């Protein structure tokens, strides 16, 4: 009997603990601590950003200017915030007043669930012209008409080439078509005595540095989804054009040789980067590489251009993406938060200053022409790609980038030579993506 009673007591205690745990999990966040610092009566605005180290310092400079001009707020910036933290905070309710994310592909998640507030009333109230943002940036900051974010600087992808290696190979100027790119790559490639690759002309392997489906899509202008929101990888022949070109160049090197070379190509965000060391003659990369080269290998003789395209692609265009910024639904000081978001995303001076600091592309048309921008021929190429009307980005879905991951898994097998039926394989990938989209309850807009 005693054992039974003890068991009951223990059970009751465990149940109580469970209830307490449940209460703790569902409890609302406590009120924010009062603002400290110089502005005793000011509202504290907490801003979460993904930048860290040097880039965070540059962002802080921009915010400090705003802070100085606006005595009613005291802005606190928290860096190194990733999407895991953002989602966890949105769930728990312990969030900031303003949040920015590097993963614009997740805007479908933030907007669809109303986790970030609708900015439309604020935009209308302040008569903010959305057309000052190029179409692709407008696209990746909203989901199905719900605008929950604005772009804060952008990334444009273009072509880097080593001028010294070009001169040595007798090449003048960057290639403009994929066929030329292949010919140049073969000419610039150097092998060691044992047949392994020493200098690679151009590495088209998906997964290498910034080589992704997203960054390559503008080269052929292929479509991800059809008009009904179904995956169109198998239906749009342009994908096959791109993939066959890519595979033919990989086969010329030999897949295993290229993988081995790649393993020693050097870390992407360090001075050992293959292009910066002259081990890679041509590269697709974002505009930030200009700043990396200036800091790590200022002696490198290089040029930038738009990526070469297939006949179906439009030269001058490129892949666009960037940081997004919005106001979480559970944020406390929405009006003050909006004023800061508006300043950061539309003020030419703020955008130009920040762009100079971290060498990302200013995200409005006027700031892209700002006289405050530090002149740089190589960087200017990317501002042109950014404002090119044919530049594009990846489709925003309710699943984030799950559809691209499915495609990328297939491409890994394709480029290693394990797919014999490309058309059939792409059709199967379409089916898998459609099934995922159906489950998530939301495909592309």
């Amino acid at each position: 009997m005693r054992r039974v009673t003890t068991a009951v007591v223990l059970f009751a205690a465990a149940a109580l603990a469970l209830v307490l745990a449940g209460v703790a999990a569902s409890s609302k966040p406590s009120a924010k601590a009062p603002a400290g610092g110089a502005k005793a009566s000011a509202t504290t605005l907490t801003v979460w950003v993904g930048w860290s180290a040097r880039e965070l310092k540059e962002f802080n400079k921009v915010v400090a200017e705003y802070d100085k001009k606006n005595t009613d707020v005291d802005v606190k910036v928290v860096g190194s915030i990733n999407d895991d933290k953002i989602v966890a905070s949105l769930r728990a309710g312990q969030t900031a007043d303003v949040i920015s994310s590097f993963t614009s592909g997740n805007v479908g998640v933030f907007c669809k669930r109303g986790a970030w507030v609708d900015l439309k009333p604020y935009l209308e109230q302040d008569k903010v012209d959305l057309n000052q943002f190029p179409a692709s940036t407008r696209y990746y900051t909203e989901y199905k008409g719900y605008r929950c974010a604005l772009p804060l600087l952008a990334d444009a992808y273009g072509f880097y080439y080593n001028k010294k290696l070009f001169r040595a190979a007798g090449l003048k100027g960057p290639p403009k078509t994929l066929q030329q790119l292949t010919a140049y790559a073969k000419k610039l490639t150097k092998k060691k005595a044992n047949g392994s690759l020493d200098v690679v002309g151009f590495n088209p392997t998906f997964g290498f540095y910034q080589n992704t489906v997203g960054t390559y899509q503008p080269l052929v202008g292929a479509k991800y989804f059809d008009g009904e929101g179904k995956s169109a990888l198998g239906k749009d022949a342009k994908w096959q054009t791109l993939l066959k070109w890519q595979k033919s160049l990989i086969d010329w090197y030999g897949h295993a040789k290229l993988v081995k070379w790649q393993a020693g190509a050097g870390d992407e965000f360090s001075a050992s980067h293959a292009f910066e060391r002259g081990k890679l003659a041509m590269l697709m990369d974002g505009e930030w590489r200009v700043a990396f080269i200036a800091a790590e290998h200022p002696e490198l003789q290089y040029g930038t251009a738009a990526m070469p395209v297939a006949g179906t692609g439009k030269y001058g265009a490129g892949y666009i993406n960037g940081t997004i910024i919005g106001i979480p639904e559970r944020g406390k000081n929405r009006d003050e938060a909006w004023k800061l978001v508006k300043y950061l995303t539309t003020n030419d001076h703020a955008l130009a200053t920040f762009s100079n600091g971290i060498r990302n592309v200013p995200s409005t048309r006027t700031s892209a022409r700002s006289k405050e921008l530090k002149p740089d021929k190589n960087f200017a190429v990317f501002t042109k790609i950014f404002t090119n009307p044919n530049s594009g980005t990846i489709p925003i879905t309710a699943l984030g980038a799950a559809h691209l991951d499915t495609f990328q898994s297939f491409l890994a097998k394709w480029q290693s030579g394990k797919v014999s039926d490309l058309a059939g394989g792409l059709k199967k990938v379409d089916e898998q993506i459609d099934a995922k989209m159906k489950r998530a309850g939301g495909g592309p807009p």
Partner: protein
Amino acid sequence: VISESAAGAVTAAPAAARARHRAKRRATWRRRGTVLLFLSPWIVGFSVFFGYPLVMSAYLSFTSYDLISSPRWVGLGNYRYLFGEDPEIWNAVRNTLWLVAVLVPLQVLFAFGVATMLARARTGVGFFRTVFYLPALVPPVAATLGFVYILNPATGPVNTILDKLGIEGPLWFNDPAWSKPSLTLLGIWGIGNTMVIFLAAILDVPRHLAESAELDGAGPFRRMRWVTLPTISPVILFSVVIGVIAAMQYFTQAFVAAAVAAGQASQAGSVSTLEQGYPEGSTQFYPILLYYNGFRFFQMGYASAMAMLMLVVALSLTLLIISQSRRWVHYQGAAR
């Protein structure tokens, strides 16, 4: 006629009994309170960190839950997708079973082999025990980074040496055929904890049994087969069960190795360029797929269904191993 005092005694007796009973009950509750007080850290910890998550996972597995909005009941929808439609699940299951079938036995064998050698060592015993145990102290991420560096096909010391010997080394973590064997090497290298348990068990084998067997003419192999192995069989069972559970939860090493070997980083402003289970899905293990679904694709309901399945499979495998162990595990002093 009952005297007054006798009547008082009659009425006082039940009252005294009740008082004794109350005192006894109070003592019992005090004892229970004390027990509960001492148990409370465990009860709270168990409830908060195991009971509550387990119950919530079971509930969420029947919902569509994106981590932000409220869970929506979908019945068996997640389980139907798990068993019938998910294109990635079977690759992840195959890879995980590979670990259970290859990595676990090799780890147990290697740990047993090293422990046997160390048990026989005559000199430098402390030194060798330390050397073989040390890898267990290295954090998994650091150990993985080290292995990816050592086995780098282009710049790593292993392939450089092989190259000098005229042998073309494999692509290790960069080759789908070699990625799991490379992780197995890493797993075998870090068997320090299992090795120590085996060593203790081997040293605990009664000397008189081995001596009797030797007098009966048994050689080293027979002594190992008929004396040592039966005696340490509970430890073997323990290592196998723990190894199987660990293999089914294998995450950190595979995740880090895939990312580092691929030489990839998160793509600024966009999606990650990271190929799941690089190379070619060969390191896509079940827990990694679970993580991707839950935290990258915001399908926590589905991830919970995956977690419940993993719990059921791990539990079933453990029960199967334990039930089969009756045939080969011998407990000293146990009635047969």
